[in-house]
């Protein structure tokens, strides 16, 4: 049975509807890419899962209906979000950012800084004074230390330098291979997604239009729906 399953999910921001029927599944230990051009509903889907936007349709996580839950309750069930607009708690130090949200499990402070050694060096520094890349690592670490069963990365490498992007992708690959964490990834870089993901779901105008192993994503499909 899949860890996360969405079936015919619709969502709206008041008067404007953003999702018209999204089907999406993420299995235990699976890494799934959520793809689509800008404005096709990727982030809204994530916001619906994390209960940050009103939605209809069936959403189940770990066998539980999550459509009526609040944001923090979904997070407590094991959905760790790395949101699109990365934002650490600026006035807390790196260490405090992590300790404030830690929950018991595999991930603790030592394991997070082992994954991102840069955070170790900066552990006593205020998060607001970190570089963009370091903040992103901190936000990923902050999601991990809540010990989620599913990690959602919404544009985790957006706007970062190639070197830092590489570092983050390496860490994500490490997560996949060493911990078997289920991950849902949104990213623009098809090349990286192909390397790391097992499956992909493609959105077009708020609907899921393609789903399958990412290796089956042919150039015809990617040209049609992704513009590449």
């Amino acid at each position: 049975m899949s860890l996360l399953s969405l079936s015919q999910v619709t969502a709206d921001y008041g008067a404007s509807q953003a999702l018209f029927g999204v089907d999406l599944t993420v299995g235990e230990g699976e890494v799934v890419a959520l793809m689509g051009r800008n404005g096709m509903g990727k982030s809204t889907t994530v916001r619906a899962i994390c209960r940050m936007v009103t939605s209809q349709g069936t959403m189940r996580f770990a066998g539980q209906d999550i459509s009526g839950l609040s944001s923090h309750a979904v997070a407590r069930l094991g959905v760790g979000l790395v949101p699109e607009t990365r934002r650490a708690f600026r006035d807390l130090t790196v260490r405090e950012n992590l300790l404030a949200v830690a929950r018991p499990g595999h991930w603790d402070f030592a394991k997070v800084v082992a994954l991102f050694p840069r955070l170790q060096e900066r552990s006593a520094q205020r998060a607001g004074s970190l570089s963009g890349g370091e903040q992103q690592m901190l936000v990923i670490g902050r999601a991990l230390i809540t010990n989620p069963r599913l990690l959602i990365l919404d544009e985790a490498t957006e706007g970062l330098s190639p070197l830092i992007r590489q570092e983050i992708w390496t860490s994500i690959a490490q997560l996949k291979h060493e911990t078997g964490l289920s991950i849902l990834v949104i990213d623009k870089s098809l090349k990286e997604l192909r390397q790391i993901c097992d499956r992909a779901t493609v959105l077009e105008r708020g609907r899921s239009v393609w789903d399958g192993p990412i290796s089956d994503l042919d150039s015809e499909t990617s040209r049609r729906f992704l513009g590449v």
Partner: protein
Amino acid sequence: MTRETLLNTLLMALLIGVPLWAWVADEPFTITLATRAVIFALAAVGLNIALGLGGLVSLGHAVYFGIGGYAMGILAYHAQTYTPLMAWPFVIEGTKFMPVIWLVAMVVSAVVAFVIGLLSLRTSGVYFIMITLAFGQMFYFFTISWPRYGGEDGLSIYVRNGFPGLNTLDPIQFFAICLALLCAVLWLNARIVKSPFGLALGAARQVPQRVETVGLDPFRLKLVALVISGTICGLAGALFADLNRFVSPTMFSWQMSGELIVFIILGGLGRVFGPVAGATLFVLLEHLLGGVSDYFLFYVGLLLLLVVLFTPGGIYGILLGRSKS
């Protein structure tokens, strides 16, 4: 030692040194003044957990201060008149025993803070300020029209309540009790600030939506902060009533709530020892200027205006040369 630690140490040395000097010099009034400062500081430290740490601008913290006062007043009144507080279904007697009075003051304050929090934390910003103010006024007018316990005139308690092993009527000994409680609460506060709860509360104040996605419930965090905060104010209220051996509805007044906020702003928002500095300065000004002019609050207002306009970090901000958000 950082400059802030040095300043904290100096402040505490002042708070301990002056009464000790007054004790040696046989100036009981000065000790009473210092006790007043310590009790106000205790209440302000309590409010600071909600205001400084949780960002909850409560204009109704006099509720807990007043509840503490009335807990002491009512229990001691029944003890001194030898009438039971309650005769049915079981008998509850009054008491003159401080620890029991403190416990009652704190438990009742905690329960009331919980209920007020459940209702008021659904709002935020100016609505939160208004709803907490409204609760304060409710308690104020209720006690005014409560003839059983003195109504507007309040309740006088003839002899200060007792504490095992100490003579509480001796000003320096009562001062020591209050100071010990203040130190305990400051220690607790410093622990809270660094605990995961305190860090999460600070984060929730800064970015409420963000803490939700990492599994923290801002409502619950704030509610807990408000309950801790109210409990401490309740304790301070019981001590304040014992200091004056008198309680009246003014303990519930909105001016009281406002003064607590003033202590925090004067001292330095978001610093553990800020409220202590603020309360001490306020009591000092009240004493010095109160003798010179009937309009001493005008000068306090002026000072507050200057502090808010030019040094948002309060006394701590001035002396440490930077403000801490």
